[in-house]
């Protein structure tokens, strides 16, 4: 192994808190005024700051829910356990919801992990490729016998978030300057959410369990007929005509292919 590679391995380990800076003191030029270990700690701090800040940008509601100090501690622990795999940090934190779910000190906020998933979905949609949605009249060009076998592709920015908690109401309440202005009923029931960005704005749309299953089936490239079956399995009263036109009106679809 080259000398440089070995040196960088050791500095990286130090920056990620896996090696004490004192172990590297002999590698850097000596300076009596400031000990080498303290100089090296600046790099460790910079790395922590440089990786916690992007997480704070992606998970602002999680941070509000637990407070800035707690969030930075938890995010720092996450950074050391899951350093990013790439230099483009827009998608950093894929494992953060799971990490939060297993973070003992956060267990008093049972919806924290679901909120992290919602914020991750929001960031994904925010940075997703631009794609014009299909207009509501797009289905009109298909004959009735074609419709059954039609494959309707949801917008590529779409992410699904299901939670046993009212995470959409909690998320909305924390978009206001200064935080929520009223109490949120945590017993209000769960949310089935579609998070996507058909045009400029990123949308969070609450849907019925049937519609959620329906869109999931379409995203898995099932035909319209098969998707209805999936929806009826979770919701016997699923009204395909009404739900489909509502989803079209909400700009959810990107492509319709007759197969």
């Amino acid at each position, binding site marked *: 192994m080259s000398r*440089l590679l070995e040196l960088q391995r050791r500095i990286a380990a130090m920056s990620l808190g896996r090696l004490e800076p004192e172990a590297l003191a002999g590698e*850097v030029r000596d300076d009596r*005024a*400031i000990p080498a270990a303290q100089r090296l700690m600046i790099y460790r701090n910079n790395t922590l700051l440089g*990786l916690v800040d992007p997480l704070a940008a992606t998970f602002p509601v999680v941070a509000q829910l637990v407070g800035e100090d707690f969030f930075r501690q938890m995010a720092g622990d996450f950074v050391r356990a899951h350093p990013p795999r*790439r*230099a*483009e940090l827009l998608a950093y934190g894929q494992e953060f919801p799971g990490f939060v779910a297993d973070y003992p000190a956060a267990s008093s906020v049972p919806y924290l992990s679901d909120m992290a998933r919602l914020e991750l979905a929001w960031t994904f949609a925010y940075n997703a490729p631009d794609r014009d949605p299909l207009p509501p009249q797009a289905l009109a060009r298909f004959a009735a016998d074609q419709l059954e076998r039609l494959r309707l592709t949801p917008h590529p920015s779409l992410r699904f978030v299901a939670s046993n908690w009212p995470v959409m109401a909690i998320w909305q309440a924390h978009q206001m300057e200064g935080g929520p202005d009223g109490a949120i009923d945590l017993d209000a029931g769960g949310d089935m959410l579609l998070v996507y960005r058909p045009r400029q704005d*990123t949308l969070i749309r609450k849907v019925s369990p049937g519609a959620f299953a329906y869109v999931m089936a379409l995203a898995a490239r099932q035909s319209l007929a098969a998707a209805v079956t999936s929806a009826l399995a979770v919701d016997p009263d699923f009204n395909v005509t009404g739900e489909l036109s509502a989803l079209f009106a909400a700009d959810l679809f990107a492509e319709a292919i007759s197969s």
Partner: protein
Amino acid sequence: MNTGIGLKAQHMAEILETRPALGFLEIHAENYMGDGGAPHRWLSAIAEHYPLSVHGVGLSLGGAQPLDLDHLEKLASLVEQYEPRLVSEHLAWSVMGGHYLNDLLPIPYDEESLALVAAHVEQVQDRLGRQILIENPAVYVAFDGTLAEPQFLAELARRTGCGLLLDVNNIYVSHHNVGLEIEPYLDTLPRQAVGEIHLAGHHVRRIGDAEIRIDDHGSAVCTEVWDLYRQAVARFGAVPALIERDSDIPALSVLLEEVETADRIRREEGARHVSAA
């Protein structure tokens, strides 16, 4: 090109509305590596009115391991899409064992490092099909090396044909932190190699009785750094300069005042050149 500033989300609408007299706007490449959405919408609007500079922070050119080719491809797409006037990266490393540290870590200045960085710079220039500028780092530690930093940069430029992005604040910070010598620094760099100058602020942290200067781009450019800028303009001429602010970002008007100061220094030094000729 007149002096530019780093493009920040909170200034975009005002820049598009008021169109201040900026020479260019510089972006961090990694912030625009998403596929679509608002960042690209804003940047495209800005690009209609101003030249761009793409400043990468994540290539890890000084890393002992091979470059991340996916990252290089993303940089190449960004450069193809926006056709920036300038493309730059750092004399530093930030990737090890497949992990990205989001920090600009220093390298020893010796032949091993030089060969490695030169190979990486050539790889990037080959892929982009253009020259890139390499920025001198701000450091908190120094290694025993056989070359001084400006010699290293001069030789890198000679071997690869890369240009240099001279960060005068980084010279000043490294001078205080590890005794980097300021005096022969500018004269050691080849006159034609410097293609951009960065100006930024730093803060002073006390450790015991000693001081260390942290390059956080979070405050105004200090007097000593303006003096260094004047010397740099005298030696390298009117190359594009950038006011760089990445934390505690002030109102646009505050940055525009610093832009005006940089432009004034350039005019004064330019006039001196003419009268001396």
